Every structure is written in C-alpha cells, then in structure tokens.
C-alpha cells in the first residue's frame, strides 16, 4: 500500500496473533517475576541502577571517592585550576570543587529520600482512604488535592519553606524535607486511589469481603500487593523530582543554607563567577542532572516492565 499510515498491528480487522513469549511460558510466573525477567534484559535499567548505586555510595561513604575535606577552604586558592589533588579545581572561596561535589550528594539524597518517604506515607494513607471508602470522604479529600494542585509547585514550596525555615535554626534539611514531602504526595495518592478502586471491584476482593474480611485486612492482604508496583514507580520518579526541587530551593536561598554542602547552593554561588571560572558551575550541574536522570530512567524502566501497555 502506498498510502501507509503507520500503526501497530492489532486493529479490529487484523488477525489474531500468538501471545508474546508463548513459547517461553512453560511454568506459570508471577507479575513481579515477569517484570524482573523483562528488567534484566533492559540495558537502560542496568545503566540507571548502576548510576543510582554509585550516587548512593557517594552519599553514604563520600570518603571512598575523595580524601580531601570539602570544608577546607583557603582563599589563596580562589578559582585555582584543576590539578592532581583537586580534579575540578577550586571555587571562589578556595574550596575543592571535586570534594564539595562528592559531599553534595549526601544532602540531595537525604532530602530526596526522606521527602519521598513522607510523600509516600501521606499518599498511601490518602489514596487508601479515598479509594476504599469513597463517598463523602473521597469527595472532601479529592477537593483538598485540587486545592493543593491549584498552587504552582514552586510557589507553594516557597511559602512553605519560608514558613518552616523561620521556625528552625538548623541548616534547613528538616524544613526542605517537610516542604517537599507535604507537596509531593498528590500523584501518589491518585495512583493509589485508582488502583484501590479497580482492585476493590475485582471478584476475589468481593469474595474476601463476603467471607468477612475487614477493611484493614482487605487492604493489607488483597488490595495493597496489587497496587504497589505503580505506586513505587511514581515514588521513584518523585525522588528524582525532589532532588531537583531541593537544588532549586537551595538556589533560591530558601532551601539548605548555612554551612550545608549542596549542589543547588554550589550552582547558585558559582553563577556569579561563571565568566572567570565555569568549573564550579559545571560539575555540580552534571552530577545533579545525572542523579535526576538516573531516578527518572529507573522509574521508567520499572514501569515499562510492570505495564508494557504504557510504553
């Protein structure tokens, strides 16, 4: 056909196909098992996973990567060039850029992971409650989500972070974590809600209910295991987003502060001297982008493995 409108096979008129992997399915496998088989063959997954492990190692054991002290700053070395001891040179305060970049991973991961956990817990409870009980609980809580989504994320974060940072005198980790945690749960809650609603209508859940299973048991044993995959995927991607948001807030001066070492602060500080010394800007930027990329790719790969339809 010369008029070829490309489309995948399987329109209503197309013939029936053999199911995928029909030959390999000699023994029954669980969804998770299938997903793992898919993931193991996915190069992107391995690439992302390696990056994530590397970054986690940086955050937990920075000394493995550098012996320099990131707080050892000597003004005399201001904007000093790269050398064997300082791979990326020195910044405007004479600090070792490489060491500060390595140590910066900790703040990002700390805030990112904690905020994501917080969002996950809130989202889980919200999603379960709205999805399972429905009715007015669902209506009220869903309106509440609408209100939160009615404020652009960064604006809400600015207000919240300002509010929390004026209460505490620390370096801001707690304030930023709570801010991102409180704002990030809406997608997770919506995913959870729709999974719960579709799971609730499944025959086996209805059967369990008829056999007298209470709401707690139903959620724990029947609904949760079926919804958890997409939930985790959303959280993985959120983790990447949180790390980016932390850097943005720090860049604006309402995130981490004081003597905290953070990629966002480094980027903000280096911006003013970019004409003389681009290295202090470039390296934290590269690390930050790589970290966000790693989590987004990891989330994408896991989602594709669990739900090939979404590809």
């Amino acid at each position, binding site marked *: 056909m*010369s008029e*070829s*409108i*490309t489309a995948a096979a399987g329109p209503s*008129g197309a*013939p*029936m196909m053999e199911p995928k992997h029909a030959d390999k399915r000699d023994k029954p496998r669980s969804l998770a098992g299938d997903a793992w088989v898919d993931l193991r063959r996915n190069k992107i997954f391995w690439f992302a996973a390696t990056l994530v492990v590397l970054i986690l190692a940086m955050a937990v054991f920075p000394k493995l990567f550098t012996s320099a002290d990131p707080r050892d700053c000597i003004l005399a070395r201001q904007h000093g060039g790269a050398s064997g001891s300082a791979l990326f040179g020195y910044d405007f305060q004479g600090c070792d850029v490489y060491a500060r970049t390595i140590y910066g991973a900790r703040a990002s991961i700390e805030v990112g992971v904690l905020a994501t956990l917080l969002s996950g817990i809130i989202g889980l409870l919200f999603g379960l409650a709205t999805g399972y009980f429905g009715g007015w609980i669902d209506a009220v809580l869903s309106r509440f989500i609408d209100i939160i989504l009615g404020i652009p994320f960064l604006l809400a974060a600015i207000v919240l972070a300002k509010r929390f940072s004026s209460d505490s005198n620390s370096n801001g980790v707690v304030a930023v974590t709570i801010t991102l945690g409180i704002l990030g749960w809406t997608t997770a809650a919506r995913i959870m809600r729709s999974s719960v609603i579709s799971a609730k209508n499944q025959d086996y859940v209805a059967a369990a209910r008829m056999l007298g299973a209470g709401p707690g048991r139903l959620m724990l044993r029947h609904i949760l295991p079926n919804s958890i995959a997409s939930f985790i995927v959303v959280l993985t991607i959120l983790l990447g987003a949180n790390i980016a948001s932390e850097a943005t807030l720090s860049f604006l001066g309402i995130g981490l502060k004081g003597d905290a070492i953070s990629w966002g602060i480094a980027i903000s500080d280096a911006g003013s001297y970019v004409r003389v010394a681009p290295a202090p800007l470039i390296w934290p930027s590269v690390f930050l982008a790589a970290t966000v990329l790693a989590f987004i790719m990891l989330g994408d790969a896991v989602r594709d493995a669990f739900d090939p339809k979404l590809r």
Partner: protein
Amino acid sequence: MTDIKAKIDVLPGLDPRAPLLEVNDLHVEFRTQYGISRAVNGANFTLAPGETLAILGESGCGKSVTAQAIMGILDSPPGFITKGEVKYRGVDLLKLPEKERRKVRANQIAMIFQDALSALNPVFTVGYQLAELFRVHRGMSRGDAKKRSIELLDQVKIPAARARIGDYPHQFSGGMRQRVMIAMALALDPEVLIADEPTTALDVTVQAQIMGLLAELQQQRNMGLILITHDMGVVADVADRISVMYAGKVVEEAGVYDIYARPAHPYAKALLESIPRLDMKGQQLNVIKGLPPALTAIPQGCAFNPRCAYAQDVCRQDPAPPSYIVAPGRTSRCHFWRDVVGE
C-alpha cells in the same frame, strides 16, 4: 440525485462490460515481530450490479482484511498484499497509483463499518463529515455541500435532518449513527458497497431496520453489495450468493439456496449445523470441535483438516485442495465435495 454523475476522469482501461468487481487469488499477510501472519490466502469472488454477496466466516478468518484490501485501506505496514488482483470493471485497482486509487474510494467503492460510534470522528459534526466528501471529491461550496448532506440524511430516514446536521456523533442513537454511516458511504453514488458487520453492534430490532434500509437503497441504486458477517440469519434473508471463508481462503462459493440446502464443503456444512433451529428442540446443538488455526501456523494441506470429519491423508498434505467446480457459479475447496453434497 440525477445530477451529472461527475465520475471525474475515466480510469484507464475501464471496460463497462467487464464484471463490476472481481477479486482473483488475493493474498494478504501481516508482517509482525512475532512472525508472518497469513490473513488472506487466495480469496476469489465476483460481484454483479444489484447483487448481494455475503462473505461468511468466524472472526479472524480474514473477511475484514479482504474488505480492507479491496478498499485499499489496509494498515501497511504491517499488512501487505502479496498477490492477486482486485478488478473494478476490468481495471486492477492494486496497480493504480495512489492518487487514482483514492478517487475510486467513495466514488466507486464505499464502505460501512461495524461500530459507527468509533468509526465516526468524535470531534466533528456529522454535517461536516458528510459535507467533507462533497467538498473534497466534488469541489462543492460549503452551502451546496450542506444542502446535499441534508438530502442524504433524509434519504437514510433520519428525522429532522436539517436540525441534526450540526449534531455530533455521540448525540445520535446507535441505529441513527449507523444510518449516518450509510449516508456517508452512499454520498457519491458508489457502484459497490462493502458493509463490514453493519449491524453487529446494534439491538436486534434496529438490526432489522438497518438491513431493510440497506436492501431498499441497494435496489434503488442497483448497487453491488458485499455483506461481511458471521450471522447466518442475516445472510439467509438478504444475500443472493455466499462466500464462506476459512483461514483466509474462500472454501465454498454458492447461491444462497444451494448452500443452505446442500453445502459442498465440510466447514460450511458444520457452520449450518451449528445454527439452533426450532425443529431441533431438545437435541444437542452441533458445534465445530477445535479452534480455527492461528494464522501464523496454518496446517498443511486443507486448513480445515484437523477439525474435519471427512479428512483423509490427502487433506493433510500440500498442495491444498483446488477450487473444484461443483456446478456453474458454484465452487468448493474440498477433495471430497461429492461426499459432502451427496449426503
């Protein structure tokens, strides 16, 4: 309707005395990542003006793909026509350049689809979708096209056509939507109409109305109608001739009375025996055992042999049975058609 039938430029090689539509040895395959799926493996039939040919078969037997290949709207890739001819009045449509081919669609050969709700574009009014035909093919002005569209809706008996022209497909009932589809197919006075399961998505009472309307319009216009269906009941009422398809092949072609009285292919016979009838009350219904073959792995020899009561060794080996002439205008692809008919 008696306007200058602006059948644009005449197709090269057009022969008014040649059969209206002739399909010879048509082969279609789908090339997918899981292998080649042979959807149509030698479909043959002819259609005369005013005649109704029913193509009958289970889902997945290649009847819709055949229709799409005739129309030239196969999704390609993955679908490819590998062999055969589709002749309209002696012109092989498969050899026409795309631009000419496009003019044949809707002008000479038109098509009605199964589910009118999804087959109509949801974001345009039915008026727009009808008028589009006149504007693109006939170069009419907006106003003229609209007037013609209203006439058409009147012809397919949609009440208050003038008012409904600005409505969207989802505002019509199922039956009315299928009438819109019919109006759209008939807009440019085609000589061949292909109806792909036109009533499957409708209620039984509405089905009868739609079939009645189709028959009436066909008679008025002396159109050739290809009716694709799996519903033996519909076929018996309206068809003149029947082509039974199995695994991409026409296994039997015959007049409607002949086939109902004495089928000449075991598959056609089995299909007929699987219809519940009143006089069979209390008896067990005959079902065809087994499943149709996957089109990626069609059995050697006769494709029906694993499910066939008449099958012998010769049926399990290539070559597949040829098209035996049972009577003038009647064929069967069964080595043992005499046994099947004779019973």
